[in-house]
């Protein structure tokens, strides 16, 4: 039971990661691919934050009478990663808008067909 509770987080993280990977591989719609990448990304955030959690620890803000804090370093790294992730998502969405303007579709296989019929 201890082993299950101690590793449940990591297993759900892996499940989310695989759902994201599956979406990216198997779905042809470009917006859905981007959302799959985002799910993958959030699963990595959970991996880091889960590793930084300490049983019975408080949030890492210094206060009177608190002895145990959770690890602040993963929080810092993930703060940076969230902001960078949104910047790259914005870039990907801009590319989708351009592709829609040039090809008239955002389905991967239709774009592929158009490229080969030129």
């Amino acid at each position: 039971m201890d082993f299950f509770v101690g590793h449940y987080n990591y297993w759900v993280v892996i499940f989310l990661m695989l759902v994201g990977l599956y979406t990216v591989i198997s779905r042809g719609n470009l917006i859905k691919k981007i959302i799959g990448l985002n799910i993958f990304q959030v699963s990595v955030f959970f991996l880091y934050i889960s590793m930084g959690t300490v049983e019975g620890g408080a949030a890492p803000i210094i206060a009177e009478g608190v002895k145990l804090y959770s690890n602040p370093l993963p929080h810092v790294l993930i703060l940076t990663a969230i902001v960078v992730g949104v910047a790259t998502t914005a870039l990907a969405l801009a590319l989708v808008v351009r592709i829609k303007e040039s090809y008239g579709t955002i389905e991967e296989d239709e774009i592929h067909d158009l490229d080969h019929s030129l």
Partner: protein
Amino acid sequence: MIDIFINVTLLAFLAITSVAIVRMTNLFAIVMLYGIFSLLSAGLFVVMDAPDVAFTEAAVGAGISTVLMLATLALIRNQQKPYYAEAPQAHRPWLPLIVVAITGAALVYGTWDIPGFGDPNAPAQTHVARYYIENALPETGVPNIVTAVLASYRGFDTLGEVTVVFTAAVAVLLLIGGRRPKPAVKLKDKGEQDEA
């Protein structure tokens, strides 16, 4: 104990939401579900004692990303097909499933060596984290350790982050901002014929 219960429940909700996202075919519903997914993540970050990350995820992940995706949907809207039908699969469906299953098996095998969730003696807890917790307040005068590390100890990291965000903003403006020539008519006609 209540912590663990909330943790398990929220993670289960996240898994269900992600599966729903994969199975949906309506783009608007997918974007809305992704907003819910981000909000659930923010709640989970609070349970895992990371309030700063939760604030950022709720504001940037659930807020700005959703707005950006809705704006994209508005820009690429298609009068003929308001709901997109799932495109025919490029590969047979079992091929991605096999790839994903093998990756998953390897990753789960890897978790056997990870110290349990919340273990105070895990290697991640015993090295540099202890230094920050003990010295952040005397050295920087900031009670919030995350802010102290972000803005003071790792200030150059944050400068690099700002550079990335700036580069992405410039690239987005170059791609879709300002005045652009109209897209080539020939290609557009071809696209419409293809859809019909």
